[in-house]
């Protein structure tokens, strides 16, 4: 199956990934080859099969606990890696014109 350049652009937009025209062409070819390969899953009869949605058996993990206040990062620590900040906020480019 060949993925069109238009589809590649649509997926890139969904993924918030800006691609160069060269990347678009490369990915169209490479993703098409990978999708052809994974298509072999169509040979399987999965009509009676439940999906494996959890890697662990039920009850193995995820116990319930009390909802209680515990120590966490201070705002200063949480903001230390911010590319841009103002006060105790992350600053981003303008969203609404």
């Amino acid at each position: 199956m060949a993925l069109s350049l238009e589809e590649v652009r649509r997926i890139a937009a969904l993924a918030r990934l800006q691609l160069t025209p060269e990347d678009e062409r490369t990915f169209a070819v490479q993703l098409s080859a990978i999708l052809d390969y994974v298509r072999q899953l169509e040979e399987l009869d999965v009509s009676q099969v439940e999906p494996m949605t959890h890697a662990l058996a039920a009850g193995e993990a995820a116990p319930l606990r009390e909802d209680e206040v515990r120590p966490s990062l201070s705002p200063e620590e949480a903001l230390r890696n911010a590319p841009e900040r103002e006060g105790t906020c992350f600053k981003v480019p303008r969203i609404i014109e």
Partner: protein
Amino acid sequence: MTKPAASMLDLTMEELSRKLAAKEVSSVEVTEAALRRIEATDARLGAFLRVMPDEARAAARASDARRARGEPLSPLDGVPVGLKDIFLTRGVETTCGSRILEGFVPPYDATVVERLRSAGAVIAGKLNMDEFAMGSSTENSAFKPCHNPWDLARTPGGSSGGSAAAVSARQVFGALGTDTGGSIREPAAFCGVVGVKPTYGRVSRYGVIAFASSLDQVGPLGRTVWDAAVQLRHVAGRDPRDMTSSARPVPDYLEGLEGGAKGLRLGVPKEWFQGGVEAGVEKVVRGALATYEKLGARLVEVSLPHSRYGVAAYYLLAPAEASSNLARYDGVRFGLRARNAKGLKEMYGETRERGFGPEPKRRIMLGTYALSAGYYDAYYLRAQKARTLIRRDFDRAFESCDVVAGPVAPTVAFKLGEKVDDPLQMYLADVFTITCNLAALPGLSVPAGLHPAEKLPVGLQLLGRPFDEATLFRAARALEREIGALPAPAGI
């Protein structure tokens, strides 16, 4: 290349631990030796993204002080180890092999890092890896390639290539890696060390940069089975900060380690020996199986009919999870931000275009496609159902055997550059390791010998029932004791 002079760096972790306890060597001495070895070799090897000499020296001095005071110490106390750069280290840059995290200094330690520190281990630095753990050769590192200590023209495997290379090259005595589709076992096999992918849920993933959250698992690499087992014992176990970590008690893996292979039933999947393995690799693997028979184990043929669908299912599920996990790298809260973008959306797009290398981009695209409207049932859901079938194969196999045994990889370490232009060929390097992650089982790679023609290490893969790492360690130790340790790698 010169062979390393016989030194304390040639000791196994087990031997070093004994000498530290007997005060025949100090942690400061061995840490200085390790730092010198890294300094002397790493420009050629490329195993480290960041060496931590000051932190390591401080930790070594603290360990020696604890010992001088006569405190009870763990076997890891004072032992130099390395960390794949996927583990958050408080105050020390952590990049996950990606430009998008260049300069990122985590405000906290991963749970496994905390546990290594509290066991007294000396962390020598952060190790090279494929960007976001995506790859099988460490060539996807955004910073530099890593080389195989047995032959510098070859890859160490990946994605935990730096971890395997550093342990093999005697830069450190052990290391932690992560394994999502073979990323501990394949480099361990290529570099001639022991590598363990524990059962999903055995080790906390808190503070471990996420790739595919239903498949990722943390595990140790060491030069011997004992060395790997002792590391796992110290990092495994329930962590309230990781909802998927199991509350099952962690057994003392060292206790039954010398139990031997007598009576053990080894399941040999017939589908794994149907022409997909290079002849010399197959010979070494079959040799190891024959050794087990000699040791009193019984070989049982088992069938894993759906394992041939493993790579296909994996390359839908892992990219789908990755596309979601990597959405957080958007230039807002940490890491790279594209400056001068006109608006928020442009800032996202440009940041991610500049920050991610080709492989993460490829997988984000693939995963976004597999999850997008109209394709979910055909791709993602079908792959999850294939995952059920793969797990059932193993459940059936374990009715007639205790351990499944086979090759780790179809070939020995391949050459740098050999597969970089063909992503699908690179993905197929994981054909024997991937099903273990899909089925959420524990898996281990142990050196089985050297390839007869290439003189490069070949690994034997052992897979176990969920949470039965102890049997894998015992089985691997029996082989290791029988065939002896590999010589030090000749390439570095």
